[in-house]
C-alpha cells in the first residue's frame, strides 16, 4: 500500500505469477486468452459487468500478459475503492467460464494476433526469433500463442488453469493513491480473507540444451525495407550480471547519443531506427538488437557494422563517462516510474516479481552505482558471444509474386 493524497484517485494492481512460461504445446496462448476470460463474469458480477460497474463508478481497467506474469490493473476515483475490491475479489473467488464467452473471446484474440503478428513484420520477426533461440524452454512460443492452439483451447483447459494459477497464494496486490492504509487493510481482509489457498504451482522445467553455434532464419515478406533482428542468449534476472546488462543496454542503444544510434543511424546511415531490448526474465532471457534499415541498405553490411560495434566494446571496453551517463539515465528512469499512482503500484509489483522483494527495487540506483566500466566490458565479452547468437532477417519480397 502506497498512500498519496495529492489527487482523489487510486490505482490497484493484481500480479499473478503465471504467463506463457507455465504453458505447454497444444495450449500455447492460454495465459493471454485467460486474461480475456477474467472479464467475463463471476458469482456476484455477471458477464461484462466488471467494466460496466467500474466505468460507471469513474474507473477504467486493463490487463497484460507476458512470459512470466499476468497483470490486471484499475485506475479509479477514490470513492470507488470498495467497489473495485469487491469486483477484483469476486473474480478471484468465483470466476465463471462459459462456452459462449470463450467462443467470442477466441475470435477477439485471433484478431489481436492478426493485428500484432500476422500483419506486422516486427511481430513476425519476434516470433521467428524466439523459436530460434529456444529449443526446449517455453519462451520458445509467443505469448499470444500459435493460431491453431488459440483455436483449440477448451473450457476445461481454462478451468484447470484458473484452479492452478489464480489462487491468492500465487498473487500479489498493490494499491497506490488516496486512502488510509489501516482502513484499506481491513477492507482487503474482508474482501479476500475467505478465498481458499490453491494447490502448489507446478515448477517450470528449463531443459534448454546448450547452443552450439549461430542460428539464422529468413523471413520473406512483401515489405519495402529489410530489417534485422539479432539476439544473444542472456541470463535470468536473478543472475548477478543482470544490472550490468541494463547499463550495457543504455550505453548501446538508449538515447540519440548512444553508440549504436551514432554509428548506424547518423554515422553510416544504414538504419532508420535502432532498438536494444534487454527485458528481465525469470528464466534466461535474450539481449536483442532490432535494426529497421534503409530500403536500399546492404543488409550484410549493416550486420557487420553492428558486430563491429559489439566487438569494440568487448575488446576496448567503455569509457567511465559512458557508464556514469547510463547510471544517470537509469536513475531518472527509476524515478520517472514513480511519478504516478499507477507507476508506483506497477513498479513495486514488478520488483517483487523479478527481484523477490519489492524493497530491492528501491535500492537499484545504488546497485547501478556499483557497476563500473570493467564490469560492463566483462559482461559484453561474456554475453555477446557470436556462437550464442540468433539472427532473423526480413527479406522484402514483391507482393505480386
Amino acid at each position, binding site marked *: 500500500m502506497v498512500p498519496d493524497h495529492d489527487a482523489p484517485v487510486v490505482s490497484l494492481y493484481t500480479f499473478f505469477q503465471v504467463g506463457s512460461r507455465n504453458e505447454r504445446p497444444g495450449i500455447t496462448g492460454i495465459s493471454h486468452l485467460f486474461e480475456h476470460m477474467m472479464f467475463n463474469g463471476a458469482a456476484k458480477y455477471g458477464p461484462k459487468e466488471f467494466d460496466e460497474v467500474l466505468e460507471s463508478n469513474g474507473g477504467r481497467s486493463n490487463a497484460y500478459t507476458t512470459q512470466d506474469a499476468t497483470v490486471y490493473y484499475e485506475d479509479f476515483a477514490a470513492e470507488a475503492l470498495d467497489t473495485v475490491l469487491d469486483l477484483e475479489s469476486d473474480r478471484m473467488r468465483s470466476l465463471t467460464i462459459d462456452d459462449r464467452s470463450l467462443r467470442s473471446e477466441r475470435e477477439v484474440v485471433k484478431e489481436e494476433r492478426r493485428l500484432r503478428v500476422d500483419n506486422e513484420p516486427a511481430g513476425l520477426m519476434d516470433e521467428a526469433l524466439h523459436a530460434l533461440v529456444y529449443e526446449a524452454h517455453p519462451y520458445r512460443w509467443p505469448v499470444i500463442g500459435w493460431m491453431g492452439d488459440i483455436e483449440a483451447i477448451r473450457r476445461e483447459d481454462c478451468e484447470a488453469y484458473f484452479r492452478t494459477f489464480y489462487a491468492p497464494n500465487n498473487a500479489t496486490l498493490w494499491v497506490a493513491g488516496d486512502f488510509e492504509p489501516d482502513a484499506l487493510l481491513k477492507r482487503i481482509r474482508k474482501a479476500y480473507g475467505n478465498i481458499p489457498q490453491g494447490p502448489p504451482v507446478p515448477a517450470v522445467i528449463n531443459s534448454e540444451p546448450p547452443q552450439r553455434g549461430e542460428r539464422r532464419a529468413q523471413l520473406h515478406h512483401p515489405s519495402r525495407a529489410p530489417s534485422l533482428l539479432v539476439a544473444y542468449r542472456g541470463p535470468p534476472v536473478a543472475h548477478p550480471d543482470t544490472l550490468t546488462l541494463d547499463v550495457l543496454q543504455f550505453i548501446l542503444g538508449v538515447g540519440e547519443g548512444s553508440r549504436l544510434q551514432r554509428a548506424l543511424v547518423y554515422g553510416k546511415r544504414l538504419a532508420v531506427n535502432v532498438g536494444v531490448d534487454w527485458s528481465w526474465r525469470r528464466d534466461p532471457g535474450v539481449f536483442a538488437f532490432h535494426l529497421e534499415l534503409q530500403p536500399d541498405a546492404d543488409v550484410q553490411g549493416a550486420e557487420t557494422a553492428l558486430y563491429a560495434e559489439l566487438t569494440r566494446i568487448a575488446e576496448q571496453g567503455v569509457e567511465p563517462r559512458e557508464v556514469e551517463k547510463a547510471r544517470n539515465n537509469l536513475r531518472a528512469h527509476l524515478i520517472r516510474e514513480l511519478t*504516478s499512482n499507477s507507476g508506483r503500484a506497477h513498479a513495486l509489483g514488478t520488483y517483487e516479481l523479478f527481484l523477490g522483494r519489492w524493497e530491492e527495487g528501491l535500492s537499484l540506483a545504488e546497485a547501478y552505482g556499483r557497476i563500473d566500466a570493467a564490469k560492463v566490458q566483462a559482461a559484453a565479452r561474456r554475453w555477446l558471444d557470436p556462437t550464442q547468437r540468433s539472427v532473423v532477417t526480413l527479406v522484402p519480397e514483391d507482393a505480386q509474386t
Partner: protein
Amino acid sequence: MTAAKQHTVRAVAVGRGLRLHRFQTPGGLPVTVARRGRIPLVAVRLVLASGSAGDPGAKEGLADFTMRLLRRGTAQRDAHSIDEAIEFVGASLGLFAGEDQVAVALTTPAEHLPAMLGVLSELSRSPVFPEEEVSTERERTLGQFANDVDDPSLLADRALLRTAWAGHPYGHDVSGTRASVASFTRQDPAGFHAAYFGPRPAHLFVVGAVDPDAVATQVEEAFGPWAGGPERGVEISPAKGMARAGTVVVVDRPEQTQSQVRLAGPAYRRGAPVQFAAQIVNVTLGGGFTSRLVREVRVKRGLSYGVGSSFDALRAGGLFSVSSFTKVETTGQLLSVMRQEVDRMRERGPTQAEVEKAQRYLAGLFPLRTETNESLAAVLADMALYGLGDDWLDRYRDRVYAVTRAEAREVAGRYCFPEAPLTVVVGPAERLRPQLERFGPVEVLSADDVL
C-alpha cells in the same frame, strides 16, 4: 510576489490547490510555472503557435522536419555535444510538431534545470541546420516512410487525414510526403525557423518541485534577450465541410489478412462550448471498454479486438471518427455494425442512464490527465494555446456534470454523420470491393499515394 530581478511574478490560483506563477522575460517570452509535488524531476515545455498547417505548399512536413533538426547543431554546439549535454545528466528531450503548434518537451532532474533551460534556449534561438545533418535527416525520414508501408493502421490514419481534409492546410500528415521531404534543403528548415520562432508566439511552462522565483531568474538568464517572432501563429482558414464525404477510399495491400477501417465526418473546433456534451456522446458510443461499439463489435460478435470513436478538435475545425479492424472476410459486416451504431446514436442520443454513467467516468478519471508533471505541462500549454481559460481544470468536472440529455442528443444529431461519412479501408482491394460497394463509390489508392 516579487522576484529576484526586474521581472514580476504574478500568482493565479486555478483551483484544486494549484497556483500558476506567471511572468515575462525582458524579450517578451511568457512563462508559466506550476510548483507541485516532491518528485525531483521537472517538466519543461516550450510551445510555439505554428505547426504543420503552416507548411508551405509542396513543402509538407516542414514544421516536423525543422523540429527534428533543432537538436542537430546550433551556433554553439554540434549534434553530439547537444545530445551529451542533455543525456549525460539523465534528462530527456522530445521535439514535436502538431497541426497547430510545435513543442519542445524536456524532463530533467531538478538540479540540472538551469543548465537544461540553457540548452532549450540554444535550440530555440540558434539552430544552424548543418547541410550534413539535413541530408541525414532527409534520408532517415524517407527510410521511415518505406518502413511505414508495413503499418496498416498508420496507412489508414494517413489516408483518412489527407482525404478528410483535402484542400485544407490540415490535409497532410505532419511528417509530410515522400515527394515533399525529398525536396528539403537546409534553406527550408532555416526559413521555417526564421518565420515562426521567437518569444511572441511562444509560451514556456515549467512544472515540478521548484521555487517559482528561482525559476524566473534562471529562465531570464537563459532566454533574457530573446526577442521577436510573429505576433501570432499562422492563420488557418476555417474548414468548409468535407470534400469527399460519402466516398470509400481503399488503400490496396493485397497480402493483408486483416483490414483497417476508419469512418469520419466534420466536427467542432477546439474550445467550442459543445465539447462537453460531445465527450458524453463519445464515451457512450465508443470510449472506454463498455461503449455501445465495444459491446456490438467485440463482445456480441467477436469481430475485432478494438473499436473506438473520438473527436479531434483543432484550431480551425475538427473531425469525428470511428476506427476498428477485422479479418478481411468480415470487413463489410464490421462497417455495417459501426454505421448502424453511429446512426442509432444520431437519431436518439444517449439514454439518461448513459449520460450519467459517462459523467461519472469522465469526472472520476479526470485527475489522471494532469497526474505527472509532463502531462500537467501539456494541458497548461493547450489551455494557453487554445484560450481554454484559467478555470479549465477547476471547472471541468462541473461542466461535464452540467450536460443534459437533451444537449447530448442535439450534439449527436449534429456530429454523428448526418451526411454520409468518409470511409477509409486498408487491405486487399480486390477482395474488399464487393463488400464495400454498398457504402459508397469505391476509389482505390496504392500505399505510395498516401506516403
